[in-house]
């Protein structure tokens, strides 16, 4: 069996008295795509932010490529981030910079690539997400939501990472644009041969981009299986979530 590229072991995270993650365990192998589904407020985004070191853990361990990521070792985290990309829920583009500088940000500021070469590589990457050269000099505020997600995807893949995180990649998009983004995600992740961890509550998106799907509930993974098995998981929580029923063991968040 291939050693996992990313592994979270017994991760706990609380905000004051509110326990969000309570023994979260998951891993993802190189080149594989894991989608974590779960209701609003179950800690999906927190689990991504903990994985990236944007939040400190109360308890537990994170391993990247076999190395433990310790909170006080910045060099270990830097090494992980250099091999990681992230598409944020709202794209999180830098609105003071034009599109090409957003895409080439890591190349310019972390890898020391010249601005001329960085722009060429940014335009190449934009083409991969079906955006033309004319978009390169626009500012994020001049783009539609779908285009911003594409630019965010281009930024995530520009440095050819080994692991890409997707935080609700289709939230706020119409079904057709969402499907186009899903296609691009699959195409680019498979093209790079990268591993990916996505979080979503959009089931069509989960089925399309995931090799495997895991369900997060009560701060831990309660089911994990192949994407094609999610509709007949035999787990009443997964069943209720997948079919979007208000009745069942999961209480609505309202």
């Amino acid at each position, binding site marked *: 069996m291939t050693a996992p590229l990313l592994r979270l072991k017994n991760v706990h995270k609380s905000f004051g008295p509110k326990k969000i993650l309570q023994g979260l365990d998951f891993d993802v192998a190189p080149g594989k795509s894991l989608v974590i589904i779960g209701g609003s407020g179950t800690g999906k985004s927190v689990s991504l*932010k903990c994985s*990236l070191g*944007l939040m400190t853990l109360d308890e537990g361990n994170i391993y990247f490529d076999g190395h433990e990521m310790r909170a006080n070792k910045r060099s270990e985290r*830097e090494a992980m*981030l*250099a091999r*990681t*990309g*992230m598409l*944020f*829920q*709202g794209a*999180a*583009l*830098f*609105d003071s910079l034009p599109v090409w500088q957003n895409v080439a*940000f*890591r190349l310019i*500021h*972390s890898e020391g690539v010249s601005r001329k070469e960085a722009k060429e590589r940014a335009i190449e990457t934009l083409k991969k997400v079906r955006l033309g050269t004319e978009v390169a000099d626009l500012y994020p505020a001049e783009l539609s939501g779908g285009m911003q997600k594409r630019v965010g995807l281009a*930024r995530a893949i520009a440095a050819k990472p080994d692991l890409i995180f997707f935080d609700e990649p289709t939230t706020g998009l119409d079904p057709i644009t969402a499907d186009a983004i899903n296609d691009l995600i699959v195409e680019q992740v498979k093209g790079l041969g990268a591993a990916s961890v996505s979080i979503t509550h959009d089931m069509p998106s989960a089925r399309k981009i995931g090799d495997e799907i895991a369900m997060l509930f009560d701060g831990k993974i309660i089911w994990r299986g192949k994407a094609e098995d999610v509709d007949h998981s035999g787990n009443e929580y997964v069943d209720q979530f997948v079919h979007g029923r208000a009745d069942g063991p999961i209480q609505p968040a309202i």
Partner: protein
Amino acid sequence: MNPEIPFFLKPLQWVGAALLGLLSETGRLAAFIGRVKISAVSFPLYFGEIVRQCIKIGYYSLPVVGLTAVFIGAALALNIYVGGSRFNAEQFLPNIVVLGITRELGPVIAGLMLAGRVSAGIAAEIGTMKVTEQIDALDTLSTSPYRYLYAPRLWAAIITLPILVFVADVIGVAGGYLVATGTLDFNGDLYIRNTMNYVTGGDIFGGLIKAAVFGAIVSLMGCYHGQNSEGGASGVGRAATLAVVSSAVLIFFSNFLLTTLFTRIGL
């Protein structure tokens, strides 16, 4: 479980909680300032960002600082004339105007204008970046927000505020000159000669030192409150308000400390 506190001890509990809150906020602020200062003197320094912030903070503040300075200089001249004439000392008007502007009003007024224009702007910008996850995005792109966002703003404010204050000094004195020669029948040549003979390099230098300190306060308060903002638009608004209020209070406080220090060392 905490034991129930008798009602007559509740005020003590409130005072204790407020004191602990103040101490922890002071600790957080000190840690933030320390980290920004270390980032400001360690590589990589983002020179392009420093230049961009110098233009935003310094160049675009010129009109507001200049306008304020001319009116303050003019009003100061009128007040000194009225006050001085009560004991036949109106001839000292040019001397007092230039001293007042260079040592006190120039730096303080420019600092306060920047607290309103720049500190609030920085807090709103950084706060918006925080709530839209742009600061998290910077971090995931292996770029420290302390180096890329906060340090350039600190450098830009420390560099540009003394320049702005020097400009304010000149314009403020010119405002006094215009009022004195235009409405109070002062001789223009004599006014300029009195001003130049009386003001010392120490007066101007002291004001510029104050300006650099005020610049640091304005930028650090903007960055600190911006990066601590949470809760969407209302959180960003609150951060901008806190940045202005804390900058203004700290400017007055540090002005008093610096004036005391300069008086002691004879500057």
